């Protein structure tokens, strides 16, 4: 593989040909601000936040680091005062019509624009635009589209067509009228949208966000990586939790099976965990009525009845149905229980159904 040697802010990096400047900088732990770029998507270079200064031979100019590839012998500067001024200007234009409650951090949603605006000390002073121009699209039962927060980075349109292959979201209109929308400006619910939320996962501002009908927006206290409880794809996902509740599921872009993608079930199907229908105490049926019981009482009863049947009729009068939803460890223990404790091989699960 051909290698390029480059200098980024004085640090030497040796990277394969075809590496972008942004990736090369990452390799030597230099971070360049980005907004329209997402590592999961091909770059398009529309926000100009990642602009850097490059010099190679006689060539000297500013390029978008997310998009431009390194060349052998290139010198890159990522944070000259001139570049920082250009970034501040780009941000000032972006925040002009961005909703104040989002910039003030009152929404509970993460917002990359807010983070950058804070970092650069940018406020609405210089330019002020029209904040609430668009009605919300609430037609989908799982997602809200709020174009007022949209910064036209096109991450969602790229995610929808290149990751999901669904081609629902497009940039409609021109110039100041540009906006993200399904074709013909249809409400999302009336399209072939599969509610995968790939668009949402790539959105930097929460312009596309989940509805979370169960609770008011709060910031997560912890993010725990786990595996989806639905199908056999084995998608890794991040549980964002606060106190005793799951606030939302977010993409984990390191998951080997899914690399951040999820389907509607994995992304929006976690409310059952906090459902008021959850069983919280053992129950025993007596004379046709359910009564709550303590664990000791319930387990003593189960042990007694299982033992009785085994003594009277032999171990094969007992059977255990294990679960394809239980963990490996639990399945191991369950079959061990059937075989070593009850003494029967009558153990199966729903692999056939």
């Amino acid at each position: 593989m051909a290698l390029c040697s480059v200098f980024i802010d004085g640090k030497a990096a040796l990277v394969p040909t075809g590496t972008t400047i942004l990736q090369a900088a990452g390799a030597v732990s230099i971070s360049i601000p980005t907004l329209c770029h997402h590592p999961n998507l091909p770059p398009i270079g529309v926000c100009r936040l990642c602009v850097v200064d490059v010099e190679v031979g006689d060539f000297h100019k500013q390029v978008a680091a997310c998009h431009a590839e390194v060349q052998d012998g290139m010198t890159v500067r990522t944070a000259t005062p001139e570049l920082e001024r250009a970034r501040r200007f780009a941000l000032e234009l972006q925040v002009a019509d961005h909703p104040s409650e989002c910039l003030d951090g009152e929404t509970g949603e993460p917002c990359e624009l807010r983070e950058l605006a804070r970092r650069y000390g940018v406020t609405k002073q210089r330019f002020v635009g029209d904040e609430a121009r668009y009605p919300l699209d609430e037609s989908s039962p799982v997602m809200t589209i709020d174009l007022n927060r949209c910064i036209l980075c096109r991450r969602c349109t790229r995610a929808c067509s290149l990751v999901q292959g669904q081609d629902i979201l497009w940039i409609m209109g021109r110039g100041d009228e540009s906006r993200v929308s399904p074709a013909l400006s249809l409400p999302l619910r009336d399209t072939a949208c599969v509610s995968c939320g790939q668009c949402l996962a790539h959105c930097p501002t929460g312009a596309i966000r989940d509805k979370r009908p169960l609770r008011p927006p709060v910031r997560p206290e912890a993010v725990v990586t786990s595996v989806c409880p639905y199908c056999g794809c084995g998608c890794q996902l991040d549980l964002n939790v606060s106190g005793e509740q799951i606030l939302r599921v977010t993409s984990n872009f390191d998951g080997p099976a899914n690399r951040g993608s999820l389907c509607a079930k994995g992304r929006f199907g976690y409310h059952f965990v906090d459902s008021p229908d959850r069983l919280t105490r053992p129950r025993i049926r007596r004379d046709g009525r359910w009564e709550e019981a303590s664990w000791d009482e319930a387990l003593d009863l189960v042990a007694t009845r299982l033992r009785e049947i085994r003594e009277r009729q032999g171990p094969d009068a007992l059977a255990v149905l294990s679960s394809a939803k239980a963990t490996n460890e639990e399945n191991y223990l369950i079959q061990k229980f059937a075989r070593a404790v009850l003494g029967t091989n009558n153990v199966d699960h729903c692999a056939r159904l």
Partner: protein
Amino acid sequence: MVGSNTTEQHPIIGIEMKKALRAGAALIVADPRRTELACLAHFHLALRPGTDIALLNGMAHVILAEGLWDREFVEARTEGFEEVKATVEAYPPALAAEIAGVPVESLVGAARAYAAAKPAAIFYTMGLTQHVTGHLNVLCLANLAMLTGNLGKPGAGVNPLRGQNNVQGASDMGALPNVLPGYQQVNDPETRKKFEAAWGVPLPEAPGITVMEMVDAIASGRVRGLYVIGENPMLTDPDLCHTREALARAEFLVVQDLFMTETAALAHVVLPAVSFAEKDGTFTNTERRIQRIRRAIPRKGAARPDGEIICDLAARLGHPMVYRSQAEVMDEIARLTPSYRGVSYARLEGEGLQWPCPTPDHPGTPILHVTGFPRGRARLHGVNYIPPDERPDAEFPMVLTTGRVLHQYHSRTMTGRSPGLDALRPEPEVEINPQDAERLGIRSGDRVRLVSRRGMVEVNASVTERVAPGLVFLPFHYAEGAANLLTNPALDPVARIPELKVCAVRLEVPARSGRSGLARRDRGL
């Protein structure tokens, strides 16, 4: 793709399929329904349900007759070629296509395309296996892969897509009546000796009974006590009336679940379990990848993880099973299971491991059979066509097939309690071809009645070209309009899988039609 509606059932794998298509791959879909991938496919073989063997033998016939097979692979790595050759000779494309109800050009074209693509991968799910010939159907697919040398290399293989998040792991762990962890046979004395030494008790020798047989054994009184953990046979088993009668007859039924399911309602004792978010452990996905789940929130009320409950019960029955952590359980699994021997929690951070992983420094095995097969040479099998157990007749003239939809899952205990998801698909709809609908005067949204030899349901109709004339499709997730009241419990004699994918039904318009006639848009793909 055979019998797999991948973009709805395995959406993330469906994404990869669509990416491959965009990159120029050829796609053949064999499925009675016009699924999303069937619409995108180069060949959609809309076979009559249950005619897979005829179709696949016909394809093998073409591949052999036109010399498209991989002689080198067949000679070096397989046996039984003559047998297959003799069998498939009896399935010339015209005959095979006629049995399967597909155009002969499509069958021939698909056979050529499969043989020409190098490598070519086969994927299947329960559309192939839930038949009385389920295991034979799989053998026919394996024949195609062996004849074309499509095993043991990247981008090839015969790949079952596993339905539940941990159905692979539950099988690996020996939650099956005939095998201990790692598919070690219970009737092998050496294996039993190993587990007896580890567990300190003598172990039963005779293989046990499968889930479908359990239901029958309870009905006949042979099994008296049933312990059901996290399953809901009262919606997922075929012929629910029979299941209900049987379960109601159990002398003692314990159900351990998150919710009061249809099955729990019949129990004597119900034990509250916790969800994946409240416990530690591992799941094994359809690529045999073992991955960690982690406790993220406190347990609800007094609910406890399945493993803890089982260990507590074991102690009460005089055989304590004591572990300090799930990691320690995995260590015991690794000691006793050759394919998991190299697995430990320390190694599972990040991307997890794909078994077989025989030693602590083994990197895992993404592709099976690269250099050889466990039995030496792979066996080709000559398989003859056997029609489905139940065929349409004058009384029940149509065929019902069942499956899942994207936004619901199994018996809906989880998706039905996630309001956004449930709103996407709140009710079952039976898919009916426009020709049949016209004949019976049915429009989308009308209330219709489906009757089989075992039961009847009333659901709303969705008139759509997704199904062929004479075929109806009903998802099995819903308690109201439960498809499995209708389905046929006839079993594959070897795999013991019920024929959920074919049963004969009659479609009727109930007298008070249009009762819940809110016409919903047909949001086909």
